[in-house]
């Protein structure tokens, strides 16, 4: 399949020994001018690339406190060295978080600090050369911006911030990754990452309505561009057709139907994900975010609800208010934006959803905490809600649930290996190797607890797992959406499932009554 070896699942994961240069030169495809120009980048290496790169670095240092502080404050303690899944899978020391940061830091020291200007050898400062640039391009695309290293750093240094800055500098000298930039132009042109045009989307939504009605006898609406609904649904475009994503979308539809919340998607903003985050560009991230504001205004909704997507939720939860707010025109009684899991969980808490867990009895589930939800966002009104709420919803939808090893979940969860703009075939080796720690944890609960399926709440995780599972000897469809479980278990009012459970015409209904929609 490819010219690299899938790492072996190790019985006792120990810190691997370093192999210098193991992943040298492994890089994504370079972007093309046709994409770059649209995003404000030159698209090719300019003559004065060195000045341009350094000027951009200076600019970012002056605009981002994170970058400035992180460049200065690393003490080289080594605490982060064994914490990155890409290091664990590749053994390349430049994939140790501090090793990755140092690629930029060495240049920072050379041109921006007294010590590096006059005593470069002493502090490991280096000149900016084309080799250095190549190393940046390679290793800053072997980072999924997952922030696991940050959890362990005594200085709170976030390698993701450094990676984003490096990618932004690279883009300014014509060395961006094609994957992210091509997708960003698609979002702008067509409305979503997958390039799904409005009419096709409309067709899919109609099919879904039919399918649900056939299965349940209930007419669940999937609107597109409908004005005056309660909510705008922002969901990753993979939810519109890929497995297991689409089963999650069906789940959202059923939940919102039961909640009596009318909703619509927007054909112009038919994508929750925001790849502006990956490339570290405030401007591009803002542009993509503005579509959501515009769609919300155009469609006259009162709420914005996000579907299952990790990085999308980070940008939505942490940045949307900053980038496209204030949202004073929306209903302030609901969180803006709100996660679909917050909606579902709230209803479960209030006993407003009837669930038949037996529907999922053929599975034993575990849950993969997505990195950006775990470490860069929140759900609910308590810290850590991002861990408890998805688990509570899963447990409400199934009888058999087991957590993976605690050193691989919650705030110390391992990235799936495909986040942060690495979910592309040209980085397959990086993805497969980076998936190792997650796959090891999954193997353990499979062997010891009979886990059959892993649930996730991120489009990237779901796509990455679908590809990775076979490499590590699992079934490809072992990955499921959380709202897919909800979808299977939910017993909608007036549905065939309800009749089956209660007996036809029997009014002895144990489901709690709520206002009719």
């Amino acid at each position, binding site marked *: 399949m490819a010219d690299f070896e899938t790492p072996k699942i190790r019985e006792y994961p120990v810190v691997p020994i370093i192999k210098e240069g193991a992943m040298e030169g492994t890089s994504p495809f370079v972007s093309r001018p046709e994409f770059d120009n649209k995003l404000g980048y030159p698209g090719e290496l300019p003559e004065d690339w060195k000045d341009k790169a350094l000027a951009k670095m200076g600019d970012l240092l002056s605009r981002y406190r994170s970058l400035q502080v992180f460049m200065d404050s690393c003490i080289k303690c*080594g605490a982060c060295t064994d914490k990155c899944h890409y290091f664990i899978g590749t053994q390349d020391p430049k994939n140790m978080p501090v090793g990755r940061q140092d690629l930029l830091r060495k240049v920072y020291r050379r041109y921006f600090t007294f010590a590096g200007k006059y005593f470069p050898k002493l502090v490991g400062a280096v000149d900016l050369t084309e080799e250095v640039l190549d190393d940046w391009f390679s290793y800053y695309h072997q980072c999924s911006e997952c922030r696991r290293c940050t959890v*362990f750093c005594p200085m*709170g240094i976030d390698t993701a911030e450094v990676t984003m800055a490096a990618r932004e500098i690279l883009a300014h000298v014509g060395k961006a990754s094609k994957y992210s930039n091509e997708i960003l132009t698609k979002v702008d042109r067509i409305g979503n990452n997958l390039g799904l045009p409005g009419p096709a989307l409309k067709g899919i939504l109609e099919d879904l309505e039919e399918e649900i009605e056939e299965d349940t006898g209930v007419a669940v609406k999937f609107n597109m561009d409908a004005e005056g609904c309660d909510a705008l649904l922002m969901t990753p475009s993979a939810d519109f057709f890929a497995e297991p994503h689409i089963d999650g979308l069906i789940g959202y539809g059923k939940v919102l139907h039961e909640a009596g919340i009318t909703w619509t998607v927007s054909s112009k903003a038919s994508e929750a994900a925001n790849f502006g985050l990956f490339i570290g560009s405030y401007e591009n991230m803002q542009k993509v975010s503005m579509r959501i504001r515009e769609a919300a205004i155009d469609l006259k909704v009162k709420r914005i609800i996000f579907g299952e997507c990790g990085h999308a939720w980070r940008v939505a939860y*942490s940045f949307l208010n*900053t980038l496209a707010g204030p949202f004073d025109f929306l209903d302030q009684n609901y969180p803006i934006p709100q996660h679909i899991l917050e909606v579902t969980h709230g209803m479960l808490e209030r006993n407003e959803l009837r669930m038949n867990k037996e529907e999922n009895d053929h599975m034993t589930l575990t849950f993969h905490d997505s990195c950006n939800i775990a470490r860069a966002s929140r759900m609910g009104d308590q810290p850590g809600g991002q861990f408890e709420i998805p688990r509570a919803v899963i447990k409400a939808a199934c009888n058999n649930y087991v957590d993976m090893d605690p050193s691989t979940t919650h705030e110390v969860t391992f990235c799936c290996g495909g986040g942060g703009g690495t979910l592309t075939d040209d980085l397959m080796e990086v993805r497969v190797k980076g998936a190792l720690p997650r796959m090891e944890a999954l193997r353990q609960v499979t062997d010891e607890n009979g886990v059959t399926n892993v649930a996730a709440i991120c489009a990237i995780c779901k796509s990455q797992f679908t590809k990775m599972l076979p490499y590590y000897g699992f079934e490809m469809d072992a990955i499921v959406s959380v709202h897919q479980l909800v979808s299977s278990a939910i017993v909608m009012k007036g549905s065939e499932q309800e009749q089956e459970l209660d007996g036809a015409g029997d009014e002895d209904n144990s489901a709690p009554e709520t206002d009719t929609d």
Partner: protein
Amino acid sequence: MSEFYALLFTVAFWVLIIGLGLKIYQYIKTPAPLKIPLTPAPLTKTGVGFRLAKEAIFFASLFKSNKWIWLFGWLFHMSLFIVLIIHLRYFLETVPEWLVMLQSVGKYAAFTMVIGLVGLLVRRIAVPRIRYISDPSDYLWLILLIVIGITGITMRFFSHTDIISVKAFAIGLESFNWQQLPLDGPLLIHLALVAILMILLPFSKLLHIPGIFFAPTRNQVDNPREQRHVSKWALNLEAEKNKKQP
């Protein structure tokens, strides 16, 4: 010689204050345009205060990460802290009661400090991952601190220095009334290295001292949905100014 040291310390003091002051000013001035607290994060300012205190006092994240680095690092820093406090007696005309009491146990902190430092140095040399990320300056800092510690121990426990004169010298520095310094080898080495440390601190990784408090990952409140957070430069962007209004 005494004049040289007096001058050296005066310069070192001001370099440290001004250098550090400028760096802190730079950190304060540089905007943090986005909310990037590492979650789960506190929802209030008080919570953030506790979070930072836990990091600065107990090295909470380091503890999670690696028990050996934590042990040596924490031992070194806490010992250094006690040692620094004990040194106050050279600068205070009358030594308060609590300081005298602290001194009786605190004098052993110099040993734990050196033990911590040696532990860190051994790790730096012995663990290939840490050796890989180490530059010459990383070793030199540890060695410098170890020598400062050892010369201090020597004076305290073996070849006693005339501390009355040292105190007079130190107090003289405060008022630019330079006094004679006893010309003992260990003392001169000790003081010279301390002065070097003070001068280099604002230009080195020792900037982690202010840096730990300025990491947005740890010092931000988790409230982006409740409170709009926009930096000055972002307010001036075209997209911001021309955004669609309802």
